[in-house]
């Protein structure tokens, strides 16, 4: 799957998420994940939208998002030049005889144990979506009871920031 990551700055106003969601529905765009949160500027929220490039024309997603009045800026992050993270909380069966092994797996993925009961443990993992996939695979043999993921967030490497550049010129490359 060829995923593309769009970082989107939007006005922090009511209805913005509805407009973005309506756009995705209306244009039949498929999104893999979407996460929203505040930024250091209280007037602005930041969305990270992961789009499946195979089924969805990313260029159209980008341009259609730009057309939404409350969208301030859309930047596509280059996978190689971005840090991508996702938080997952995973409740796993922790049978006594396999518990030590389970904790070893968690440690090797730097996942923290945030709850430990007689039958299960809850792990907190923060990693790239790919690495999270590997962790979940490892945990499968123990038995994952419940999984909750935040959706991916991402930031570019280096000194540059999303607010650096002027809004991209509306002219498009042909």
């Amino acid at each position, binding site marked *: 799957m060829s995923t593309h990551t769009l970082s989107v700055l*939007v*006005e922090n106003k*009511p*209805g913005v998420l*509805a*407009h973005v969601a*309506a*756009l995705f*529905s*209306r244009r039949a765009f498929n999104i893999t994940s979407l996460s929203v949160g505040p930024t250091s500027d209280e007037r602005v929220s930041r969305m990270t939208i992961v789009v499946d490039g195979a089924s969805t024309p990313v*260029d*159209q997603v980008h*341009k*259609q998002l*730009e*057309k*939404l*009045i*409350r*969208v*301030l*800026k859309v930047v596509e992050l280059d996978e190689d030049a971005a840090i991508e993270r996702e938080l997952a909380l995973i409740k796993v069966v922790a049978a006594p005889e396999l518990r030590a092994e389970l904790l070893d797996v968690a440690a090797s993925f730097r996942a923290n144990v945030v709850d430990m009961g007689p039958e299960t443990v809850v792990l907190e993992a923060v990693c790239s979506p790919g690495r999270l996939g590997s962790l979940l695979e490892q945990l499968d043999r123990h038995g994952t009871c419940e999984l909750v993921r935040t959706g991916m967030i991402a930031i570019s490497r280096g000194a540059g920031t999303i607010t650096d550049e002027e*809004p991209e010129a*509306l*002219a*498009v*490359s*042909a």
Partner: protein
Amino acid sequence: MEVTGAQALVRSLECQGVDVIFGLPGGAILPAYDPLRSSSLRHILVRHEQGAGHAAEGYAWATGRVGVCMATSGPGATNLVTALADAYMDSVPMVAITGQVPTAMIGTDAFQESDITGITAPITKHNELVTDVERIPAAIAEAFHIASSGRPGPVLVDLPKDILQATSTWSWPPVLDLPGYRVPGPPDAERIAAAARLLHQARRPVLYVGGGVIKSDSHEALRELAETVQAPVTTTLMARGAFPDSHPLALGMPGMHGMYAAVAALQEADLVVALGSRFDDRVTGKLAAFAPKAKVIHADIDPAEIGKNRTPDVAIVGDLRTVMGELARAARALVASDGPTDTADWVATTAGWKRSFPLRYTQDSDGPLKPQHVVERLSAMTGGDAIIVAGVGQHQMHASQHYSFTKPRSWINSGGAGTMGFAVPAAMGAQVGRPGELVVAIDGDGCFQMTAQELATCAIEGIPIKVLIFNNGFLGMVRQWQELFYDERYSEVHLGTAIPDYVKLAEAYGCVGLRCEQSGDVDAVLEKALSISDVPTVVDFRTHDAEGVFPMIPVGHANDDIVLGPEFTAAEQRAAARKEVMAS
């Protein structure tokens, strides 16, 4: 000065230069109707909110100004939905104002509550639920700015009742707070130069002109460009009137029911210049087989249209008026320096196609009345000077095909959305916007019955539109598809010609009602209808029920598969398939 939200709304509309609102009051919007009484704004009380929406559209199409409609919450607002969807598809500048239940009751399933901003998010350019009375002037000013700038479109402003009743200090003009809204700047000079070079080099160019040319008022630049580079011009359903049909370079409408010459020219072109058009499926047919030999220049104010359906060789984003002015200037300079373009053979070929495969129908003097004949007589009798408004279906295609348009903003229809019932209220809006002019709605009997009640509005408000009903007793276009693609298995398309009695219905609505059943009477009936200027007039033309619209490209087919229709011989159809020119 302290004013209520309702007063602020009315003042804002006045300051915005609005002269007319089409609307219908109800509970939540009631506060807004009180200050309207003492306002200079003309409010036209419609009979159904959908009519208000289409009237606002017709007004906008005819004048280029923003059309305004107003409705109450809940069903009042949802009745605007079809018109908003229509305006969104056809990029019609429009502001819809809706009442909403009081803010404290939002979300409680209150009486006449509906989430109209949620409902209309995908069919408006923008919408806003106003939750602060102080914001009303800015919300209205922003709505007008967004609706009318860039690629135009509908904007909805939802006003809860308590916000309309609250008070604030009036001030105007408000500061627009739209940090995320950008209108494209001047077009890229290098791209203009590249486009001009392609145009100058092309041997078989076609200008594929869309509604953007009319919306940007760039028809004069279009004519100059076409004549400078000697390129034939096709005007889409949205662009009829952007280029005079009588011009030697005019090929007429392209697409599913387009002129053969327009369709063939695009298929054979070595350069297609898309100007404010969007490669709609009704124009392209099977997209992969559209204009297969052509390089493409695509100029549009909406960057998202570029590359949406067809990847261009040169893309120009900008206001078409500037783009085309500069393109014409650059082309003129190239002609001056490097000599005229070499398109004479091509222009002759396209003219040969026009001559060989024209629109054809047969009107026997004692045979059934043909809709094409009525349109042609109307065209001749008005000299192409009327504002023609159509609904959707066969009558719309016949009107677009057979009326000879001479100028922009003289053709109004529902293009992208295909909204039946558009014509009567849109004609009403057009007539209000251009009161001294002749506005003629050409409508089908199916369409007419969806919104006919606005005849009452027209009669009472003194809006003397003419409505020509092409009454064939069928949902004619659907019937045609069942005939051609469902083996004549007609299903739920027969309406009957006699019920209602359109003459009596017209009279009941305070209009003049006329009927015409024979071709020999067409001129006299039209003459009578056109002579009435004080009341609306409805003519019941009893047209042939089996008449189809041709040419036709079956849906999903390549445009090369164009079918000329039953009026052409098999030999002619074969010649057309080979894109030959018949000896005259």
